[in-house]
């Protein structure tokens, strides 16, 4: 009797260990594997020619889902890094961050006309113009983020943790209404400068659109630059030290307030870049876009392991793919529920996220 119970307990413990280590991976792999298998065995309707559906039995639809998802995910990754940096250093869910991204989109679109960017601009002019837009937008959103930190978070450094959360929400509402007064209440379409929906080339039957390329061309160098900055420079070292233990960092002579400001600057700059990419790629902007993007990016940051930059990128890409799969297979109206369902699954199976370390809070 005792031995039987012992055995059962051992089996249960093994299952729990397995779920802790592999549960999340299995959950994440479930959707693509399932849909890949149905595509292969049952086929899918690729087109309708002369009234007859054309059924394909290959993986190119899945490949297309992945391409679309990864490029969406690149945008989420840029925003998620901002969340993860801020959370890593002052343990605050910066609710205003998604709206900083929205302001980034609006600033970028607002700059096109003064810079003379339009549908008729040549490729060289376009490249220069967009580079200028990118830099100005990043500086704007970065300094705005620093300003928000100075006004709304720094005075509350020693208040209960919920207080800055509420001011963050307050600033989120303020920014949304600035956007509302600036560009009006409904979604607004902007000129498709780069021809985002044009196919650049095709790999194995999967068309790669220009918009997809763009998001990676912007995301990859920025992420590398950021990683270099944090790992190799003195200021980056100060950031890591402050994230580990603000008090000890201060005692070692690090100006923690300046370091936190720097963190907000970097996060805001990446959000601005994401804003530009989003405007170019989606070709419409809306004052409410930041809210949803913020929630998704935050989910991504948690999925990767909050406080971890590589985790944020990975989480962003994964969320993008989940969204894209759900959009095309389950139906776009359920996508949000699917993403948040995954979020809960992560919290249950592996609270520290994919790449995060075990912490006291997430134990």
């Amino acid at each position, binding site marked *: 009797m005792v031995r039987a119970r012992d055995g059962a307990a051992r089996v249960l413990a093994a299952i729990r260990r397995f779920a802790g280590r592999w549960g999340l991976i299995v959950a994440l792999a479930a959707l693509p594997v399932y849909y890949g298998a149905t595509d292969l065995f049952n086929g899918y309707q690729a087109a309708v020619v002369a009234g007859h559906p054309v059924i394909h039995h290959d993986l190119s639809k899945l490949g297309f889902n992945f391409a679309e998802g990864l490029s969406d995910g690149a945008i989420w990754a840029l925003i998620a890094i901002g969340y993860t940096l801020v959370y890593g250093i002052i343990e605050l869910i910066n609710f205003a961050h998604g709206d900083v991204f929205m302001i980034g989109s609006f600033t970028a679109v607002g700059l096109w006309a003064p810079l003379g960017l339009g549908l008729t601009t040549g490729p060289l002019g376009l490249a220069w113009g967009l580079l200028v837009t990118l830099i100005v937008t990043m500086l704007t959103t970065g300094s705005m983020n620093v300003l928000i930190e100075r006004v709304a978070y720094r005075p509350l450094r020693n208040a209960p943790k919920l207080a800055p959360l509420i001011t963050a929400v*307050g600033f989120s509402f303020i920014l949304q209404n600035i956007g509302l007064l600036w560009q009006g209440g409904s979604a607004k379409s902007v000129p498709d400068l780069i021809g985002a929906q044009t196919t650049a080339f095709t790999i194995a039957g999967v068309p790669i659109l220009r918009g997809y390329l763009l998001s990676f061309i912007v995301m990859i160098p920025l992420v590398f630059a950021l990683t270099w900055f944090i790992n190799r420079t003195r200021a980056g070292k100060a950031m890591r030290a402050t994230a580990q233990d603000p008090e000890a960092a201060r005692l070692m002579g690090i100006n923690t307030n300046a370091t936190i400001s720097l963190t907000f600057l970097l996060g805001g700059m990446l959000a601005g870049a994401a804003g530009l990419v989003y405007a170019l790629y989606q070709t419409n902007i809306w004052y409410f876009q930041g809210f949803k993007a913020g929630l998704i990016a935050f989910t991504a940051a948690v999925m990767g392991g909050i406080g971890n930059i590589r985790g944020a990128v990975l989480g962003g890409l994964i969320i993008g793919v989940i969204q894209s799969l759900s959009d095309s297979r389950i139906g776009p109206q359920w996508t949000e529920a699917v993403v948040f369902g995954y979020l809960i699954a992560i919290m249950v199976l592996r*609270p520290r996220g994919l790449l995060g370390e075990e912490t006291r*809070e997430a134990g």
Partner: protein
Amino acid sequence: MSELRAQLAEWRAAFEERVPRWWNRALAILLLVVGVIFPFLTGSSSGLLNGAIIAVAYAVMSLGLNVVVGMAGLLDLGYVAFYALGAYSMGWFGSEFFAKLNIHVLVSPVAGQLPGIHLNFVLILIASVVVCAVAGMIIGLPTLRLRGDYIAIVTLAFGEIIGVIAVNGQSVSLGNGMTLTAGNLGISAVDPPYFPISRAFSLLDERPWYWLIFGILLIVLFVNLRIRDSRLGRAWVALREDEVAAVSMGIPLVKTKMLAYAIGAAFGGMAGAFFGAYYTTVNAGQFQFGFSIFILAMVIIGGLGSIWGAVLGGLLLGLINNYLIPDVLNDLPSKFGLHFQLTSVEFGIFGFLLVIVMVLRPQGLLPERRRKLEFTSDLVTTTDTQLAEPSATSGGVI
């Protein structure tokens, strides 16, 4: 600045010493009387009365969230889920929505003739409490192992999922041509409450609505005060302050947390059910994430963990949002030659208020006694016990 504060604190202490014992009780009775006769001071369906009804219902929700966030210290960002479930209980059990069914229990003669499920308001209120308490526990389950912001994330996710289901419930079939919700069209013509002895609940005379929700507020307030001073209330506070210590002193973690979620959710469900009847429609568009934050702001502005603070926060923000901005100040920008209405930026104003209040008074307007000590202990160190714990403000999670 700090001298000024110290001076103020000194004056307040002196004032509190001189106030007689019965002062608090007298104040409560005065507030009660003002609350009851309030509708006679306004028109029978004025903007102010309408704003007050909504504000009182918000106060009920704020009390519910205060149990979870304030007393038990579990940051819940998905409270809108219980608003939704309460309102849908009202829609499901008190309208023609399930037109294929014919169930009538103790309803008005008018509603008795209509198809669909029609239960008495009180029965639906109880049903919504049960539904929400169960849902609260289900949402609480995955968060038992988590702490702090991670709880916030899970509850947020649940709130959003319930919102998505509410919108898309139109396409979820329950068989027999019936669906789960009516999505953005809304479940419409929800029965007004019916009590044989009272005046009719109509949109022309809003006074009965006010007294109904005021009565609900009093009940919820009473329950809250009793729970706060009970074994359970002390267990919540202990868990909030130090989970490990509380558990090792023998507080049952799972039961205590689950009860916090269930009770908090139940109050939200009551207010939600009332809103379903008052708005006469249950529309998926009502259940946005912003609403969770709105209720949370009430709790925090009032003072986290403070029951009277939660009531004050709910009334204050409810009136600002539903009376002051739309009815009183709406034309303000046009007087300055600006072409927008104040209602279009109400959330911006509201955000601004949140920032101001938090920066100037992070402990809230009516802080709980325990927290007030934490906040002022470094300003006025009058006793040795406060001197002994100088780091009380920086230690706690949340």
